[in-house]
């Protein structure tokens, strides 16, 4: 019966071709825009759109932390517990991107995801999200990423060491994988009892015997050091350890595990520093041209690049025409006109005018 066997194939082939024709027609109708520019007006979260999400609930956690329950667009491809998601939010009209650990269970009702944000001093985005986020807010999203996850075959004995908002990726792991883990110890530091994010849920898990929860309040107990940790967790050396918190804590842990020759048992997650050191001038890397130059704080990046033989786009050379705009992959630049500093991290897609921008620390230009 070759005819009947092949007809679904022919039909689906026809379907694909019709679909392609329809898309082509829509493109002809929409030019110079693309059809998506119009469809975005009515359905910004649809499948195939740039990934966005809508905040459906803002849940207070502590006095300076909230959990945002977000319904992601249909393009969202799930995540592995422990990973983070980059969120783009418009603050004072300017799009700012930050990474936040996912804290939600994978089977969250309604296919929603959650991130938990703690306001940090002078943190533009964290303060905005904690104090201003409301249900209905549409955020730009990226797919989940990050290596701070459990291996496919779970270790028998696990230790989590966290401090402050460092609990967030670990909470993401616990909410999803605790049932599959036999022996879990969590040592968590926060300034006071009131600052412990997820305190109720963690204490309940400890009470029911699902994990051993060691809570440290640094205002009273002092900062956790590795000696103290070894005392709190006698079988420390036998445990695969995941740690997330301030740089000082992670540095000390790395030193401790290195010193004992078991560096492979420690997995750390560092949050991007929100305050960047900016100085006068710095090393400028033109990453595609493979050129690196030292530039002082008064030399426009355009001049620095041209002097080094990089093919720089250029225009009026006075900050007007935007003919010289290039992506700043990472680093910091200073606007020579008003001293304003612009910073970027990988993936931010920040564009700068090279003719009026000078290095303010190291920076990497996508040219």
């Amino acid at each position, binding site marked *: 019966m070759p005819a009947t066997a092949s007809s679904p194939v022919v039909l689906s082939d026809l379907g694909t071709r019709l679909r392609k024709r329809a898309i082509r*027609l829509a493109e*002809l109708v929409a*030019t110079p825009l693309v059809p998506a520019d119009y469809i975005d*007006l009515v359905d910004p979260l649809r499948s195939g759109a740039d990934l966005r999400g809508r905040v459906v609930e803002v849940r207070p956690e502590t006095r300076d932390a909230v959990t945002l329950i977000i319904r992601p667009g249909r393009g969202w491809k799930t995540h592995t517990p422990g990973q983070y998601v980059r969120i783009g939010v418009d603050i*004072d009209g300017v799009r700012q991107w930050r990474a936040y650990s996912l804290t939600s269970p994978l089977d969250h009702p309604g296919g929603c995801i959650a991130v938990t944000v703690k306001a940090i001093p002078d943190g533009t985005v964290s303060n905005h999200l904690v104090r201003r986020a409301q249900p209905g807010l549409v955020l730009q999203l990226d797919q989940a990423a990050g290596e701070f996850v459990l291996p496919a075959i779970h270790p028998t004995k696990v230790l989590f060491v966290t401090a402050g908002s460092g609990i967030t990726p670990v909470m993401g792991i616990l909410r999803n994988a605790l049932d599959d883990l036999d022996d879990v110890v969590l040592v968590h530091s926060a300034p006071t009892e009131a600052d412990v994010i997820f305190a109720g849920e963690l204490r309940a898990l400890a009470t029911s015997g699902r994990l051993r929860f060691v809570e440290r309040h640094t205002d009273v107990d002092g900062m956790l050091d590795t000696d103290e940790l070894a005392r709190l967790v006698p079988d420390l050396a036998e445990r695969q350890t995941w740690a997330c918190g301030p740089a000082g804590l992670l540095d000390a842990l790395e030193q401790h595990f290195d010193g004992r020759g078991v560096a492979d048992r420690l997995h750390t997650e560092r949050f991007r520093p929100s305050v960047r050191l900016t100085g006068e001038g710095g090393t400028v890397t033109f990453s595609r041209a493979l050129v690196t130059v030292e530039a002082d704080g008064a030399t426009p990046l355009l001049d620095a690049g041209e002097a080094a033989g990089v093919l720089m786009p250029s225009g*009026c050379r006075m900050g007007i025409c935007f003919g010289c*705009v290039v992506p700043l992959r990472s680093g910091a630049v200073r606007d020579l006109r008003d001293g304003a500093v612009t910073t970027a991290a990988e993936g931010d*897609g920040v*564009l700068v*005018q090279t003719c009026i921008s000078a290095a303010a620390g190291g920076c990497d230009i996508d040219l």
Partner: protein
Amino acid sequence: MTALQKKSHNPIAHLSDDDVATLGRELDAIREQMLASRGARDAAYIRKVIAAQRKLELASRGVLLFSLFPPAWVAGTVGLSISKILENMEIGHNVMHGQWDWMRDPKIHSTSWEWDNASPSDMWKHSHNQIHHTFTNVLGRDNDLGYGIMRVDEDQRWSAFYLGQPLWNFLNACLFEYGIAAYDLEIGKVAKGRKDKVLFKKQVRAVFDKIKKQATRDYLVHPILSGPSALSTLAANATANLVRNLWTHSVIMCGHFPSGVETFEKTSIDGETRGEWYLRQMLGAANISGGPLFHLMTGNLSFQIEHHLYPDLPSNRYSEMAPEVQELFERYGLTYTTGPFPKQLASAWAKVVRLSLPNDFFSDASAAVVAKPTALVAKVTRGASRRELPAAA
């Protein structure tokens, strides 16, 4: 007008170098003040305008599917004309100036924007942002002075070709989007062998690709989709393009051609300071007075003076900055050229007609003829040796 450096009465003779430097600092201060308050309100404004324009376009094109029905034709054509004007002026022109780049939204950015116009955005950005805005009203350097087909300044040499310029200007107005594309191709430079041929070929292809897409949409796909209304939809789309062309051409003519606007000699900008650059922008542009809706429909180019002073600041702020700028003009004894649309348009057209004839055609010869190279203050005569300037081409 005559190049400012050659005028018997120099409108900036009363300003010392220090005055000009102070003026520059005052204009910088107005800029800083605006930057300090730029934020969510502005971002919401441009997003609202873009969304409104797209909805208006969708609705108009939807209505035009039934354009055989006369009221539908009228409503659709009016809507589409307005939509195209908004798209070109308040949105396209200003986004491509980088006025909204600060939002860091890749969808509303000078590097990614493409507009509903025959000229591809890259080419337009070069000829408009770099050449016109940098060399505003400098004879021989700013091709916007007559677009290479007209004589709009006494100091551009007359030739018989210019006798027809009222007609050229009218044709250019009707076909303005193609005029801009041809102009961005710098055809005049090609004829004189002063343009790279490989680049020119590449650009010609880009222009034709763009025109093909635009024409396919307006003159083929939408008419076909309209079924029995095909011909009337085609006519509606052509009308909307014509209306847009006439409107944008008229607004732009009012920006630099009316009387009161100054031009500058080619060498006068050598070593120009920030303050002197500002001063040239102040004198090289004219505003059009009107209400908020009128300003919106001109893409706020009715604030041409403010736009030339701050081409990269959001257009919705020009009206707010205008009183301060105007006050500065008064304090420094400069003329803030402005007037109602009909008056400015008539003034610009009068110049096009007048300069189609040689300067000394009328017995009451213009001042330019009797003007001798006059000793002006050193600053403005810098390099102002009297010499014939080639007509911009």
